[in-house]
C-alpha cells in the first residue's frame, strides 16, 4: 500500500520531470537565440571562414535563458533527490530496487554530472538541451511503463552490497550518459565542420568539436573507475550470494563488454589516427552498450540479475 510518503515521492518525481521539461524549453530558446556562431559566419561572409567561437557567450538573450535553464536544472535535481530520498524512507530500504528506481537515480546522476561538467567546461553550455532530452525521455519511460509502487525487495537483495554495487553501477551509468551525448554530438559537429560551404544551420551552435571531445573525456575518466569499482563490488557480492564471483550471467557479460569498450576508448584516445572520430565512435558504442544492458538485459533476457521488478 502506498503510504503518504510514497505518494509524496511520486509527486516530487512528476514535479522533477515538469521542471526538467521547462529547463529543456529554456535551453531550447537559449540554443536557438545563440547568435555567437552565426555572428562569426556573417562576419566572415565572403572571407575565409573561421571555426565558430569556443567560449560561452557571456551576454544577450541566449545567455540569460541559458542561465535560467541551469537554475531550473538545479531546482529539478533537488526535487529529484527529494523524490528518491522520500521513496527510500517510504519503503524503508535503499531506493534502488527496481527498474523505476534505477532509472530515476541514473537520470539524477546524469544531471548532476552535467552540472559539474558545465562548471568545468562552460563553453559546453549549448549541450544542455541534448543532455536533458534523453534524461526526460528516460524519466518519462520510468514513470509510466516501468513504474512500480513502493515495496520491499526479495531476500537476495537485502544486503549492504546492494547499496554499494547498485549505487556505483547506476551512478557511473548516469555519468556516462553525458560523454555518450557529447561524443555523439562531436561526430555531428565534425560532419558540420567538414563542409564549410553549406549554409548556416542550427548545428553551428553546437559547442566546438574540441570542447565536446574534452568534455566527453573528462567525464569518462571519472565515471570509468566508478564503474570498475561497481563491477568489483558486484563480484564480491556474487561471491557471497551466488556461490561464485563471476559467472557470465548475461548482465555480467554485457557489463564486461561495456568495460572493454570504455577501455578501448581510453586506448583510442592515445592512439594516432584514432584520437578524433574513432574514439568518439567507441565512446558512443560504450554508452549504447550501457543502455542495452539497462533495458534489454533487464527486461528481455532471463538471468540471475532479473530484478527489474516487472514481474
Amino acid at each position: 500500500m502506498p503510504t503518504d510518503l510514497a505518494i509524496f515521492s511520486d509527486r516530487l518525481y512528476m514535479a522533477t520531470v515538469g521542471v526538467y521539461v521547462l529547463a529543456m524549453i529554456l535551453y531550447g530558446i537559449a540554443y536557438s537565440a545563440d547568435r555567437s556562431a552565426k555572428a562569426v559566419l556573417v562576419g566572415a561572409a565572403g572571407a575565409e571562414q573561421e571555426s565558430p567561437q569556443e567560449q560561452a557567450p557571456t551576454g544577450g538573450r541566449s545567455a540569460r535563458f541559458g542561465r535560467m535553464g541551469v537554475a531550473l536544472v538545479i531546482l529539478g535535481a533537488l526535487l529529484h533527490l527529494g523524490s528518491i530520498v522520500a521513496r527510500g524512507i517510504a519503503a524503508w530500504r535503499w531506493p534502488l530496487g527496481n527498474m523505476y528506481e534505477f532509472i530515476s537515480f541514473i537520470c539524477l546522476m546524469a544531471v548532476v554530472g552535467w552540472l559539474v561538467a558545465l562548471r568545468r567546461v562552460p563553453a559546453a553550455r549549448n549541450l544542455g538541451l541534448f543532455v536533458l532530452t534523453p534524461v526526460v525521455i528516460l524519466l518519462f519511460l520510468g514513470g509510466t511503463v516501468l513504474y512500480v509502487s513502493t515495496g520491499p525487495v526479495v531476500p537476495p537483495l537485502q544486503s549492504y552490497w546492494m547499496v554499494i554495487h547498485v549505487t556505483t553501477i547506476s551512478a557511473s551509468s548516469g555519468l556516462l550518459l553525458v560523454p555518450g551525448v557529447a561524443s555523439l554530438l562531436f561526430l555531428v559537429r565534425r560532419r558540420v565542420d567538414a563542409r564549410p560551404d553549406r549554409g548556416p544551420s542550427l548545428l553551428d551552435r553546437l559547442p566546438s568539436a574540441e570542447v565536446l571531445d574534452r568534455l566527453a573525456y573528462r567525464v569518462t575518466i571519472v565515471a570509468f573507475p566508478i564503474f570498475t569499482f561497481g563491477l568489483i563490488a558486484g563480484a564480491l557480492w556474487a561471491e557471497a550470494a551466488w556461490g561464485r564471483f563471476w559467472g557470465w550471467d548475461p548482465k555480467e557479460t554485457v557489463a564486461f563488454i561495456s568495460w572493454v569498450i570504455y577501455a578501448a576508448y581510453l586506448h583510442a584516445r592515445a592512439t594516432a589516427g584514432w584520437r578524433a572520430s574513432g574514439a568518439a565512435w567507441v565512446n558512443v558504442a560504450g554508452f549504447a552498450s550501457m543502455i542495452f544492458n539497462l533495458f534489454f538485459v533487464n527486461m528481455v533476457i532471463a538471468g540471475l540479475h532479473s530484478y527489474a521488478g516487472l514481474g
Partner: protein
Amino acid sequence: MAATETPIRPAGAAPKQRLAVLRNGWRGLTSMRTALILLFLLAVAALPGALLPQRSLNASLVDKYFADYPAIAPVLDSIGFFDVFAAPWFAAIYLLLMISLVGCVLPRTVEHARALRAAPVVTPRNLARLPHHASATLDVGIDEAAAAVRERLSGWRSAEADEPGGTRTFSAEKGYLREAGNLVFHLSLIGLLIGFAAGKLFGYEGQVIVLSGGGQFCNTGILGYDTFRAGLRVDGTDLQPFCIQVDDFTGDYLPNGQAASFTTDIGYQSTEDLDAGRADQWTPYTLSVNNPLRIDGIRIYLQGHGYAPRFTVTYPDGQQRTGEIQWKPVDLTTFLSEGATKFERPGVTDEQQRRTSQLAVTGLFAPTTSGGPVVTSIFPELRDPEVAIDVMRGDLGLDDGRGQSIFEIDRSKVDSGELVRVARANLVPGQSVALDDGTTVRFDSVQQWVSLQVSYDPGQNYVLVFAIALLLGLGLSLSIRRRRFWARLTPLTGDDGTERTVVEIGGLARTDRAGYGEEFDRMGAELVPESASTEAKDG
C-alpha cells in the same frame, strides 16, 4: 614456412629475414592499434554469450533453443556459440590480448624504472615555443629569483644548471605516479587473469539437495552430489572432508507471497573435527541468502528450497514402507511442486513379480491448497498442504540400466502398459487411499528440503587482491597528470645599477589533453606576476 623460400634468396639472408618477420610481427602485436582491435574483438566475441543461452548457465534453455530453432541451432553450436567462454576463438582473442599487453607493458616498466632515475629533460633553448609559457622581468637579483623558483618546485623532481653568462636554468617534472599507476593497472590485470584461471583449474562446485530435519551430507566424493562441476585438475578423489546436517529451514513471506527471508539452521563438522573423531558434535550455523558458511577455504551456500511429501505404503500383509523424497517446485511464486515417490514391495525376490508390484506416487503438491477439486497452490508457505496423486503400479523401469529422473516416472512404461494407474486421489496429511489389492497409501506429513552449493576456488583471494590493485592503478593513471616545467633566469643590471632578472617559464603536459593550463597559470602568477602568460589551448 620461410625455410622453403630460402633457395631463391642468397644464403645467409634467410635467418635475418625470418628475424625481421618475427620482429615486425612482435612489434605489430604489441602496438596500441593491435591492442585496440583485440579489445574490439573481445567485446564482439562476448556478445553471443549474452544474447544466446549458455550451457554453463542453463543447459535446458539451450535445449529449448534447439527445439525452437532446429535449423540454425546446430550451426551456432558447431562454432561454440552456446559455450562462448570456453570456445577456442574466445580464448585465442584474450590470449593474444594478454601477449600484446605483456609485450607492451614490460618494456614500458623498464623504461619507467629508467625514467625514475634519470634527471628531468634539460631546458629547451626557446621556452616561448612551448604550449604554456610566460616571462617577465623582475626587480630582484638572480639568487632571490632562483630561490623563489626552487621553493615553488618543491615536490617536483627538478634539476638546476648554469648556462654561460650567469644564466641559470631549472628543469622539473612531476606526475611519475601516472605511469606507475598505468603499469600497476595492466600488471594487475594479468595477475587477475592468472588467479581466475587458477580457480578454474583447481576449483570445483557441487550442488546437493538435503532434507531438512536432520538430513546430512558429507563431502567425500563426487557421487555425494546431485551435480558437480570439476576444475580441469580436479578428479574428485581428494575433496576436503566436512559434513553438514540440515536441522531446520525457515522461509518468511509477505502477504502477497513475495519471499521476505530464507534461513536454514545447520550444524557442521570441519576436517579438523572429523580428524579428531568428534563425529557426534555439530557446530551450529545459520545459513541464509548472502551469508554462506566458510570453512577451510570451502564455501557452502543456501541456493534453494522446496518440499518433500512423506508417504507410507501399507501392504496387505501388514508390511510398511515410508518414502520421503524432494519434489520439484514448478511454480516459484506458489511453490506448487511435482514429483514421484517410488516404492519397491518388500520381501519380493522373484524378478517377474517385482516388476509388477513396484509403486510410484506421483502428482502435484500444494503447500497451501486452494481447497478446490483441482489442487492448486495459493501461497508458497507450508500452511495447508494437499497432494493430488496418481498411484502407479507395475514396472518402474528402475533396473533397465538407464538413469531416470527422481522427479518423474518413466513415461514409456506407462505407454507400453507396464505401468498402470491404480488410484487417483487428493489427500491432506493423515488421509490415505486404498488400492484394489488392499494396499493403502497414506500422506503422512511434509518435510522441507534445501539445495546447497559447495564451492571451492583457490584463486579467488588472489583475484580480489589484484582487482584492488587494478582499481588503485586505474585511479592513479587517470587522475594524475604528467607534466614538465622549465625556467630560465637571466641576470640584468639596470641603468641605475639595480639587479634585475628576466624570468622565463615554460610548461608541457606529457599526457593526453588532461589540462595543465590552470596549474601552470597559478605557477606563473607566483613566479612572473606581471606577465601576460600565454595560455595555449588545453590540449
